């Protein structure tokens, strides 16, 4: 009986410590265990000190000892997987990260023509365009040819440049004058629902 009471008292003090991260004051212990007199608290503390549950520093303040160790609760079996920690999720990409490399230079464009249908780009699709990127052979580019804007494959052979559609209905374009490239298509997005 006596032991049960003591166990309970240790449990509430330890609970306080683990919850707040500090030891309770004497008056707080009083409240926790239901003592009205400080003297009773004092006796309890002396008792606990003897049992090495807690200790006191030079100035008499309480410091945890055995209750400082992680609580082991009998009856509950530690099992299963810890909940997903943030570190484990740090190595995932959002759709934004996947689709956009240089955020500051990325623009959207709604497709209206079907000249790139063979590349899976259909009218109404949204393409993601990066400006300021040097286009490589085979890239899909947004370009201005003789006053008209178009989206085509870029074919470079030495100095000569050809814009190639992905639809047999259209012919490859060899720009006569200067070719202006507004950006490189890095992705296409089509939302169904």
């Amino acid at each position: 009986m006596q032991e049960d009471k003591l166990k309970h008292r240790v449990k509430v003090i330890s609970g306080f410590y683990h919850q707040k991260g500090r030891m309770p004051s004497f008056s707080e212990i009083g409240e926790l265990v239901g003592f009205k007199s400080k003297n009773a608290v004092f006796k309890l503390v002396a008792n606990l000190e003897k049992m090495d549950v807690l200790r006191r520093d030079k100035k008499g303040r309480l410091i945890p000892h055995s209750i400082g160790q992680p609580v082991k609760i009998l009856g509950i079996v530690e099992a299963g997987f810890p909940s997903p920690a943030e570190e484990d999720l740090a190595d995932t990409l959002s759709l934004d990260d996947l689709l956009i490399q240089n955020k500051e230079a990325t623009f959207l464009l709604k497709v209206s023509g079907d000249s790139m249908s063979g590349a899976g780009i259909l009218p109404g699709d949204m393409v993601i365009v990066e400006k300021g990127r040097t286009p490589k052979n085979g890239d899909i580019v947004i370009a201005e040819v003789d006053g008209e804007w178009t989206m085509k494959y870029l074919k470079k052979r030495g100095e000569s440049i050809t814009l190639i559609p992905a639809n047999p209905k259209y012919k490859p374009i060899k720009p006569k004058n200067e070719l202006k490239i507004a950006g490189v298509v890095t992705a296409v997005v089509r939302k169904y629902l």
Partner: protein
Amino acid sequence: MIDVQPLTIHSWPRAIMHIDADAFFASCEQAIHPELKGKPVITGKERGIVAAASYEAKAKGVERGMRLFEAKKVCPDVIMLPSDYETYSLFSVRMFEIIKRFSPDVEEYSIDEAFVDITGLRRIFHNSYEYIAQKLQETVEKELDISVSVGVSLTKVLSKIASKHKKPRGFTVIPGKDIHIYLSFLPTEKVWGIGPNTSAFLKKFGINTALEFAKKDEKFIKKYLSKPYQEIWHELNGRNVYPVVNESKSEYQSISKTKTFTPPSDNETFIFAQLSKNLENACIKARRYRLAASRLIVFLRRQDFRDIGIEIKLTRPTAYTAELFEPLKEGFIKIYHPKTLFRSTGVVLSGLMPEKDVQYTLFDDVARIQKMAKIYTAVDILSERFGKHTIHHGASLPVKLHAQHQGERGDIAQRKTELFKGENKRQRLGLPVMNMKV
């Protein structure tokens, strides 16, 4: 040159860069409408006045603030576009992001202007300040497809003089030993912070140019001029006084929200609804920055562009719309005239202070205020999730039921009318959309 002695011999005690976008709104439009490049473009169609003009339009005599028909008169082939603030804001944020790749000390001075402290960066770039600034200018132009003018000098005031020296696409570097060259032909009123009154005052002493002002001795400056002008005097002499304030704008002296509607109206309920919506918008912004206003200014603009306004002192600093309705109504009744046509309304929240510094007075109903805080927290969370004005005050309803601008088509930015699947009127993807047929 009469006076060839330099103001300072130290070339770069500090290196401050000022970046100023050229005809920013018009440039953004040209960037997303490439077919408009090289053409005279203006924005502000929905307001009836020129909000921004491209350099091609400026060359034909179009000026900011002109009425549309005047712009059409001086430049018949002008292309008029409605303002698309969402796109401009996206470009603005991107411009600052690019600048921050170069230096962490960036002051976002306005939507299209920034000061950057690049002192000490020569080491990591293995190059001169001139090169760093040039690289930055190139990057903005390459990635955003808008041009900016750049000035580099020893202080903020001087860097601003440098960026204004040549525009558009200007690039001007003023090292310490060259300051006097740039100031010698610059009238004092062209200096940042010196207004027409001060400039007229300086003329009484025979000071006409910035150089004459900079060359005056300290005794004279201290005797005749107040602190802000003493500071400008130091800055002109290459002595750094104004720091580059390295944070995005979170401090506001005031928050103002104005909206024009067409056609002009004399309907009391409708005009008050316009005010009410402006008030809601201003409060949303104030709450976002955790500020509370102690004064409210209400104003109406008549069809003939004349303004009537009134300032109301609030009993308690607040950013809760419900608490401001009473004063708003009070002010509105005083300035509204029936049978007068109004074209726009506005509210200004001023005397702003951090919300956490607001103290309850003896007469405040604390319980009610705390309830209000709860309500508006919920409103703001809902707005974040479902778009602005998901929950709004009944008084603003007439605005919602009415198009802001009636009549001519094309007064709403393309961005808001041509939506991608999944976008809606309230929320769109946070990326600028190019407009060309491909």
